[in-house]
């Protein structure tokens, strides 16, 4: 078929009655005028609303709880980036955040995503009070199922020791890990996390040992998670280097 057919298949514009053309232009002008009188849209950061019941998410996803959980993971992770506004993680309502993480875990009990963000994203902010909420949350979930969530407690031990500077808390977690995570899937080194707490080791070294051990025991298989944790270590290294340089000066 010739392309002219598509260009000239309709009648020419001159066939359209003049009032129709004028009214079309007038309608467009009215729309533009209407818009100019509207209040300008201002970006407002919204607070994190409390989650609905798990069943509500199951129903609204037409019986797809896992897909709903994965979608909520990404939505929650991106909550700090709202259209036109950005809320730092530390400004989020942390008790409410833990409720969201619980809801997601209820929707997808096999998933570990909420535990990673609790331990390494929301638990890595510069606000000790809120960091404690996250470490407590990870510890609480660990107590529910130690053999499943042990590796997240291992991350939190390092946070407690190096970021919260709370050796007692770190020891409490390390002892719990040794006593409760007794499954065959838990490697021997995890039961010896006390060494990391007691030894005079820097945060970077401790984090490197942990990630290395997790890779060796096949706990980290997702390349994206590995990439994320490696980046975290690189940021820590940079921070430590800067600190050292400022001390030397």
């Amino acid at each position, binding site marked *: 078929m010739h392309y002219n057919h598509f260009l000239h298949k309709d009648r020419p514009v001159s066939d359209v009655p003049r009032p129709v053309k004028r009214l079309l232009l007038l309608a467009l002008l009215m729309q533009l005028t209407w818009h100019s009188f509207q209040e300008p849209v201002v970006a407002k950061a919204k607070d994190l609303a409390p989650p609905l019941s798990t*069943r509500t998410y*199951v*129903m609204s*996803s*037409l*019986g*797809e709880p*896992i*897909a709903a*959980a*994965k*979608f909520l*993971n*990404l939505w929650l*992770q*991106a909550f700090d980036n709202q259209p036109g506004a950005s809320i730092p993680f530390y400004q989020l309502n942390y008790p409410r955040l833990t409720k969201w993480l619980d809801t997601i875990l209820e929707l*997808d009990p*096999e*998933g*570990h*995503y909420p535990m*990673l*963000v609790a331990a390494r*994203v929301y638990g890595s902010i510069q606000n000790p009070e809120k960091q404690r909420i996250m470490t407590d949350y990870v510890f609480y979930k660990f107590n529910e199922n130690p053999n499943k969530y042990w590796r997240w407690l291992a991350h939190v031990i390092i946070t407690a020791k190096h970021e919260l500077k709370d050796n007692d808390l770190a020891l409490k977690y390390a002892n719990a890990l040794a006593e409760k995570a007794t499954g065959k899937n838990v490697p021997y080194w995890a039961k010896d996390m006390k060494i990391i707490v007691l030894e005079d080791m820097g945060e970077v070294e401790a984090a490197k040992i942990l990630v290395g051990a997790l890779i060796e025991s096949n706990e980290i298989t*997702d*390349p*994206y*998670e590995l990439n*994320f944790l490696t980046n975290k270590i690189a940021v820590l290294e940079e921070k430590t280097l800067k600190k050292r340089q400022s001390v030397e000066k």
Partner: protein
Amino acid sequence: MLSQVLTIARFTIIESLRNRLLLLSFLVIGISFGLVEFIGDLAITEHRVTQVAILAAFLRMSAVVIITLFVVSSTVRELHDKTLEMILAMPIRRGNYYLGKMIGYFYIAALVAIIFAVLLLLYADPEQIVIWTISLFFELVLVVALSLVMLFTFNQVPSALAAVFIIYGASRIVTSIFLMAKYPIIAHTSIAQQFMDGFIELLTWLLPDLHRFTQTAWLTYNTADWSTLLPLFGQTVIYLIFLSFIALFDFYRKNF
């Protein structure tokens, strides 16, 4: 008789191919691929599982929407263009016509399910995908039968489509509603509440167990085995017979 059925089935398939249904399916595949790759980049862990979960749910919904739209619009056109009257003026039973259409639509449903499954091969275990695809086909078989019932009942595209989507949605979530009604946070004993509880329970008896079909967990956590398909097959056969006789009951009573 068989040749009549097969001829009708063949023309239904030819129509679907001329209707650019396959093109639409490939378009959905393209959009899904873009979407899922974008989602994969957002995830910081469980990247593959996140992709599979969202992709499987999206493909399942898309397959249902595409098949429903095709079945309803194609049958309505036959009704309005008087093609159906012309066919029925020939020595052909209404039952044979219905059977021929169903076989044609089943073939298309299988085709759509397979096309969608090919994309999943990039992200999930092949054996689990085969089980998921067969289950999706069973689900689409019920959607085809339901679409025909609703069309023979309402004769109009908007009402038929609305009815199919409402019944399909209800079949997917009725168990959740039933559990919410059975174990409420605050117990009520009013007559209205008892009536609603009874009505919801009745729905669980009348609607197919679609929440057991085509589960995303099979693809994300490899939880399905071949025996999973047996109860789904049983439910499909029983509900297909039920829907077919409702459709035939309506179809035989229709005056053209």
